[in-house]
């Protein structure tokens, strides 16, 4: 288990527990053993990143139409796929009709580095020199739920702590009035996330490591606003009453847990004030709002989430994960991709530029990608009309992007074959990405362990290597 170094504990308690009976409080603090689990801890090594923003493109974007151009496929469009490539294919539905589906998208080189992006990502193209595009990821399962669990929790089985929980467990939270690990959801078609909340679960860790979902309807955080009729003063009055009664009980029982309880209530109260401030864009310039596409469709929701992500990072939130659902285009791929990209491309690019402009990109790691890729073949299911086909799931090769916090931008890593079916150079696995994210945060993925049911668990299980070439 890693050595957790608690710092600023005393300071924290001094700030938060004021109001307890002074004598009881001093005695509690003098012998306190119930430390705040979210206090900042020193990492294993020097950290490049303080925060992570993971733009998770749920449902699996088509790498062949976005990031991994395959001009040669045009020659074979509509022809059967080479048998040698698909002989191990399991889903007979697809094998029966495995014809090549070339991408109709034009690719263009961007920036000094000349990185290639498709016409669907003109804005992310402008970030080329900051982005490292890795075209050679593979994963272990071609169904959404297990593959999303693998990406977000390190295991294809539900129930493990998610990557944000691991990071909070390893580093604590620098933010004293917002949750350290926030999840935001958005959608192109009204669908949620496969596997749902298990993707940001604390698994077998205590619930304070859980991802807190910032919601688009109602309160941003569940039960954040006071009940109807309760003003801020009344809430403060209620909290003072609770604190007073807790203080009386602490004197009788001597239980230091009561001090932690008081601290949690004070943090809840601060969240109630801090969250509306976080959500208040009125002091952002018109230019900034425009850059993120806020106030117009189709970018408003995703753009607002991207801007929120930046504002959270500014306030010290450790791990922000955005889930955009769903890129799962078995049908009508071309039309749907237009829509997903119209929604996400501009805000995602704005986020990177904005972070850089404010000097935050140096300490913020930005990740973009989904749980796997899509096939180079048409998927023709019953009811599909010509021209409206899609691509099926593909776990053998897919692309992801990273930027910021020590990532060497302006480069492409890894190579797939001429059909984008298999990785032929520099293969990487999802566990390698996880090891790299932790590494940039100063955490050694082999030493960040948590004991559960007799075993020391790791995010990366027994796998994973840091993707060294991606780093400056």
């Amino acid at each position, binding site marked *: 288990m890693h050595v957790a170094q608690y710092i600023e504990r005393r300071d924290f308690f001094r700030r938060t527990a004021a109001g307890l009976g002074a004598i009881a409080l001093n005695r509690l603090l003098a012998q306190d053993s119930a430390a705040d*689990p979210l206090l900042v801890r020193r990492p294993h090594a020097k950290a490049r990143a303080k925060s992570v923003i993971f733009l998770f493109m749920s449902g699996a974007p088509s790498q062949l139409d976005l990031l991994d151009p395959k001009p040669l496929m045009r020659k074979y469009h509509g022809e059967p796929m080479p048998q040698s490539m698909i002989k191990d294919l*399991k889903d*007979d*539905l697809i*094998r029966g009709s495995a014809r090549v589906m070339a991408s109709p998208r034009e690719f263009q080189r961007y920036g000094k580095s000349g990185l290639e992006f498709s016409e669907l990502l003109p804005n992310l193209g402008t970030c080329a020199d900051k982005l490292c595009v890795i075209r050679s990821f593979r994963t272990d399962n071609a*169904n*959404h*739920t*297990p593959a999303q669990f693998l990406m977000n929790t390190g295991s294809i*089985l*539900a*129930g493990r702590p998610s990557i944000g929980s691991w990071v909070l467990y390893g580093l604590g939270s620098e933010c004293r009035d917002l*949750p350290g690990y926030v999840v935001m959801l958005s959608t192109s078609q009204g669908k*949620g*996330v*496969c*596997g*749902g*909340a*298990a993707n940001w679960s*604390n698994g*077998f*860790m*205590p*619930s*304070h490591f*859980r991802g807190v*979902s910032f919601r688009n309807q*109602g309160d941003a955080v*569940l*039960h*954040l*606003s006071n*009940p*109807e*009729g309760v*003003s801020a*003063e*009344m809430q403060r*009055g*209620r909290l003072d*009453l*609770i604190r007073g*009664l*807790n203080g*009386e*009980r602490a004197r009788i*029982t*001597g*239980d230091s847990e009561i001090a932690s*309880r008081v601290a*949690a*209530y004070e943090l*809840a*109260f601060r969240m*109630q004030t801090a969250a509306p401030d976080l959500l208040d864009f009125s002091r952002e310039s018109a230019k900034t709002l425009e850059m993120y596409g806020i106030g117009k469709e189709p970018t408003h929701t995703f753009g607002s989430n991207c801007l929120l992500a930046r504002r959270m990072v500014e306030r010290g939130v450790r791990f922000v994960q955005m889930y955009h659902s769903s890129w799962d285009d078995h049908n009508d791929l071309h039309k749907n991709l237009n829509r997903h990209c119209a929604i996400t491309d501009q805000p995602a690019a704005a986020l990177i530029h904005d972070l850089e402009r404010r000097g935050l990109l140096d300490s913020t790691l930005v990740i973009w990608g989904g749980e796997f890729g899509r096939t180079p073949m048409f998927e023709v299911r019953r009811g599909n009309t010509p021209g409206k086909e899609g691509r099926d*799931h593909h776990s053998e090769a897919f692309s992801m992007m990273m930027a910021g916090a020590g990532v060497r931008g302006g480069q492409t890593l890894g190579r797939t074959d001429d059909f984008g079916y298999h990785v032929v150079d520099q293969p990487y696995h999802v566990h390698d990405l996880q090891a790299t994210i932790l590494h940039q945060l100063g955490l050694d993925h082999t030493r960040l362990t948590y004991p559960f*049911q*007799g*075993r020391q668990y790791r995010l990366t299980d027994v796998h994973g290597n840091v993707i060294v070439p991606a780093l400056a």
Partner: protein
Amino acid sequence: MSIVPSNSQIRASRLILLTLSARSFLGADFARDVLPVFEKRCHACHGPAVQSSGLRLDGPEAVTKGGYSGPVVTPGNPAQSRLYRLIAGLDPKLAMPPAGPRLTPTQIAAVKEWIVSGAAWTAAARTKQSAKPAHWSFVAPRRPEAPQVRKTGWLRSPIDAFVLRKLEDRGIEPSPEADPATLVRRLHLDLIGLPPGAGVVERYLADRDPNRYENLVEELLRSPHFGEKWARSWLDLSRYADTEGNESDFPRPYAWRYRHWLIDAFNRDMPFDEFTMRQIAGDLIPGATVEHRAGLGFFRNTLSNREGGADIEAERVEQVVDRTNSVGLAWLGLTVGCTRCHNHKYDPISQRDYYQLYAFFNNADEVNLDAPLPGESGDWLRRRPEYEKKRAELLGPVAAGIARLQQTWEDKVRWAADNPGKDHVWDRQLELLGLQWEQGYGGGQLEGVSVLYLPRDDRTKRQRDHMQEMFLGRGSVVDPETWKRLGLAEVSKKLVALNKEYPPMTQAPSIVERAHRRRDNFIHLRGDFRSRGVAVEENTPSALPPLPSDTKRNRLALAQWLLAAENPLTARVVVNRVWQDLFGRGIVATPDDFGTQGARPSHPELLDWLAMDFREGRWGFKRLLRTVVRSSAYRQASARRMELDTADPTNSLLARQARFRISAESVRDAALFVSGLLNPAIGGPSVLPPQPAGVTSESLYADWVESTGPDRYRRGLYTKMQRTAPYPQLLAFDAPDPNLMCARRERSNSPLQALTLLNDPVFVEAARALARRVLIESPPVTSARLDLAFRLCFARPPSVGEIDRTSSYLERETARLAGLPASAAALAPAYIDGIKNSVGAAWSMLASGLMNTDEFFTRE
């Protein structure tokens, strides 16, 4: 490195050739040339201490037996010997040794030569196994004598002697007995999971019977809420939820039948041996009824996957693995799951042991049984003829056609099952039958395929009907033209609609041992079922006492073995979990790991005494609880003693009771109970209390249709658990992730808990209801009202300081609210004659404040 070999490389390889031929000529000496290589480079992983992949290279069985993938040496034939191929680097996937430099060409040649010449093990006897004493938990308990103590007046039960002796040895006094009101509240929360009702404490205090404590214990053990409290820990162990998990997370509308069975079993005080046999082998008990078999619902809380493209065998294997691990955790307290892929790193459990245990469950098929609750079947049967008539009217005109086509369809699907990969159309039909059987009704994974192999007459009516429905829903490929001509698509649609009108009677999810087409058992190399290792049979772990040789090796024998007197684990593991519930921490602090990496027992003799007493007391569960809660150790005060903070910071010596937050479910229950809102109904289907809009839509397909009426106020235990979007209040208070088995819940403390209790409409409503209750039930004076409110929430009157704080709070808030009529109207409880809104609203705020204090949701 350059592609063209350098001169020195060429010279080196010539040298190797020379050496090789010289060796061949001279012959290798096993003891001199081969065994030292094994010792130096192989024994770390394949020796006396560790046998990776089941292989040990320190005795003749290296040759005769080999490892999990079979023999590794074929005498006379190095090319067919896995041992040689791996050390020589001939296998592209794997080379041995896996770390450090490769073996030298000389060493490789010596091994090769040894194999060529017959692989005789000519060296002296194998390395001796180190004689470490067995781990404590692997030695069966004996009933220890209660130790001598000085302060004999403290002893109420043999338990106390064990606790007191340790304290006396260290010169520590036990804590005084908790005050009676605290004891009453503690007993209520511990035994039934609810705080004491109004007047209970007062009656207790007024009771002059010297046995009032014992009488209260009996009363609580008889309460129908007792089963609700104790069922929960078994739901945790079995990873209970009301949905299937995975992407579509379909409902399991009858999962609750197992919960119902648990509540009933605890309330009837089913002896633990019977409880175990029904949960592990209910179908194999002679004369088993549905009530025996409903206990097997324990195994039906594994996840299911109905996603197209899911590998149905992989999903099934995952379920068997989960079942194996559940038994390991719930009864043996061991982390057997580690050995799925490799021998246990720390405990004497091998991968072979694992698949022998796995074999007990590998031929159990999922099945749903008609399991009506009392009073249910009459009504169901009355409506049945109507349904049958409508079904016959619908199907009658095309019955002959359907029968003929369905016969062909079933034959072809069976053919596909026996000839996988031959025809993808029929492979798909098989897959759909396996994945989608009773989809939305919680049908078993692969249940459809098992039914397919049942002769028609052996199928139940429900199975016959549903097979026909599966065929009508998906079987058009059998003959598309006739299908169209008979209009079967339309018939199928109408049939689905008809079935919705007449839901099935309550089903019990269960498993049943298959009689035919039994699956082989073998070691899954590296945990992958596609990599077959050597064959194994049902057996128990070799480090534990053997099964009796004369019994048939099935789940019933396994259950009896768990309960046998020689079994060192089961009774200890169970009493330890009970102790954990009653003292906040187990005698073994790691209830999920009794292995060598787990915690040592703080009171080993006490643990053994309890285990023996449990077994010899005919496994009586209520008897066990009675024994513990009557003890002086249990009745101690829980207040912290500063002088012990350094001597015993974790209170493992039990010089006081523990003070801890109650469970997620109890937090809800307590708020509803004290406010008078709780609907005390016992058992039955899950309910959907209000939760904020949008929570469920974070997952892919789930939907949350709020219950209406009294179902909104059921205990937390009955809240529907949707795996992909669990109920937020339960999650915030550390209800376990329903995808994992859990023997010990976390107790965290977070701002989200505070926000929930302060602002969640469920708790706001409870606060208003409590205010109303106080204003109605108490004499109309503030001091009397405060007295009642404190008694309801904390089972005690307020202190002087608390009266000061609360009455001045009330005055302030009443004055404030008098100027805020809208706030007052929103917060005041429903109209009470003569009470102004501002007063009512201030009381609502105070009630909420009380329900947010640490003491409210803490068991002291």
